[in-house]
């Protein structure tokens, strides 16, 4: 099972975390059925992870092309604002959803065009929308928190479907759908080719420009879904706080998933597990009764550990150290 082997570190980390949280808070793994719905801390984790898991799906693809999308948090705010504006304006559910998704796709197209056509490095290109985006979202909401009452739309944030919260279904379907699309077609391979060497892949006949734009659009769409979930959950669009810091969580999820920031091979499932790990830490800190202030410091420590594990230079030095240590072994082996 190559897939299981690839996911093993993340699965082990998740299991260890769950065990740790259970030790501190014994009821963590309890699941009960209430009104035909599953309830329990684990179900809560599955629900709350939705925005980061959705963002991480798109971010994985972007990072696989050796890019980065810093604007996803603000795209969430923009799409949430559009959706709330449309619902409050009496457009109905489907047009509101389409408007939000359209806005996300447009934002992605903008980022993608800047990166692939104009040739600006991704970090800078997406920074522009990150700076501007909240201003745009506030223009739509006119600086207020737009609230609305629409049971159909609220379902996307707090509804239950077949016993599980709807956001959980949404991120599972999006993530697994995207993973299948990447692995059952050549798309994943082509994206990895661009990430490893865009020029070479273009020379080999990969239409790198179109694919790059498509990847950023996919990231924009994922951000739009995340924005819809967050907006529907609180039944209001908050242009200032929706999606704040979430781009960092999404990047962190991708990195915890073992995907290299330098592009190339990627695994969406591993990123989803990364998102679950982050959310388990968040929930665990709260359940264990620690103040949530510890959250950021723990995340920082986590990033540092992963960086050290991923570092090309440390890896090279480790190899040198191991080789020098094993070098005298033949002499030792010569002993009868």
């Amino acid at each position, binding site marked *: 099972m190559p897939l299981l082997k690839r996911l093993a570190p993340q699965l082990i980390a998740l299991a260890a975390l769950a065990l740790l949280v259970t030790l501190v808070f014994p009821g963590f793994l309890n699941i009960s059925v209430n009104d035909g719905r599953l309830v329990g801390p684990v179900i809560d984790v599955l629900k709350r992870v939705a925005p980061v898991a959705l963002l991480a799906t798109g971010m994985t693809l972007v990072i696989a092309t050796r890019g980065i999308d810093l604007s996803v948090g603000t795209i969430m705010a923009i799409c949430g604002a559009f959706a709330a504006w449309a619902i409050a304006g009496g457009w109905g559910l489907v047009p509101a959803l389409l408007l939000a998704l359209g806005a996300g796709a447009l934002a992605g197209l903008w980022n993608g065009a800047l990166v692939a056509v104009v040739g600006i490095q991704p970090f*800078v290109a997406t*920074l*522009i929308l990150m700076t501007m985006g909240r201003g745009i979202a506030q223009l739509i909401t006119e600086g207020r928190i737009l609230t609305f009452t629409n049971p159909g739309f609220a379902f996307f944030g707090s509804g239950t479907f077949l016993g599980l919260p709807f956001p959980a279904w949404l991120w599972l379907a999006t993530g697994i759908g995207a993973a299948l699309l990447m692995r059952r077609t050549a798309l994943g391979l082509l994206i990895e080719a661009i990430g490893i060497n865009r020029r070479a892949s273009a020379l080999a006949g990969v239409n790198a420009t179109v694919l790059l734009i498509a990847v950023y659009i996919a990231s924009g769409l994922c951000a739009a879904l995340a924005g819809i979930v967050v907006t529907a959950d609180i039944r209001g669009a908050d242009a200032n706080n929706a999606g704040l810091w979430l781009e960092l969580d999404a*990047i962190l999820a991708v*990195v915890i998933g073992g995907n290299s*920031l330098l592009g190339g091979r990627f695994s969406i499932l591993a990123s989803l597990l990364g998102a679950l790990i982050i959310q388990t830490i968040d929930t665990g800190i709260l359940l264990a009764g620690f103040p949530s202030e510890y959250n950021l410091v723990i995340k920082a420590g986590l990033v540092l550990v992963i*960086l050290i594990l991923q570092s*090309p230079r440390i890896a090279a030095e480790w190899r040198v150290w191991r080789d020098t240590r094993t070098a005298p072994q033949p002499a030792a082996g010569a002993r009868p």
Partner: protein
Amino acid sequence: MNARALPLYATIAIFLVAYLLCWLQFPNILSTRVIGNLLTDNAYLGIVAVGMTLVILSGGIDLSVGSVIAFSGVFIAVLLRDTSLHPLVVFALLLALTTTFGAAMGFLIDRLAMPAFIVTLAGMFLARGAAYMLSIDSVPIQHPFYETLQRAYWLMPGKGRLTLIGVTMLATVLAGMILAHRTRFGTSLYALGGGEATARLMGVRQGRTTMLVYAFSGLMAGLSGIVFSVYTGSGYSLATVGTELTAIAAVVIGGTLLTGGAGYVFGTLVGVLTMGLIQTYIVFDGTLSSWWTKIVIGVLLLLFILLQNGLVKLSRSRLAGDAA
């Protein structure tokens, strides 16, 4: 004309034209009061942007500065509240701490050979988290020395106040200009930003320079935190969220190439003032919402990035033309 300085000239021209347009609509905007306030209100941003300029010149980025400013404010406020140390001692402690923090990040960036933005992202989490751990409430600073600092100003003709923190910013910009343009360290920064491999072959000590430039950025962030705490008279762990992006925007609008290797510290000052001018205009106008600031800054950012992109392509094709 030097093509490299073109973005700087463009920045200065845009600032002057924008000021002219504002002046045509509101003649009062050309008073020393407004200019004094422009310097005071943007002092903390200007200081941190100087550090950011040097980091960006070296081809890096420092995302931790906003959090470090917030941490500095909380650190000062909590220490002044709970101990009887003199503010100057606290300042010295703080600057040593933030400089060490920056140096540690620079060390990691160099040792791990990882992208600077992800290492400083961890630093951003860490500094913000440390600020939260000190206090999640806004802590007021009540110390006679602080009142002296806040009241220190020089009355310019026209009753404008040139405050101490405004002067601190101007002095910092001057120091940054000397450091970047007149020292060996500055030359090393430009060389690193232009190309790491080339810089190494030329004998630039890459590890040392990287560490020093992030240490400098940490120092500037600490100084900016002091100025911000004098400006607001309190320390709050949720303050200055996103200041790192505003500082980056100011640096880019100031004509520094985001990929490193080209730019001027003076341009950053003009970039900061341009952004301050937009805000001042919105205040003068009274009907525009403050979120237009973000949009206008975004548009300016885009314009300058496109301008730089065009210039880089132009110089490359010229190089290719020379080679042919």
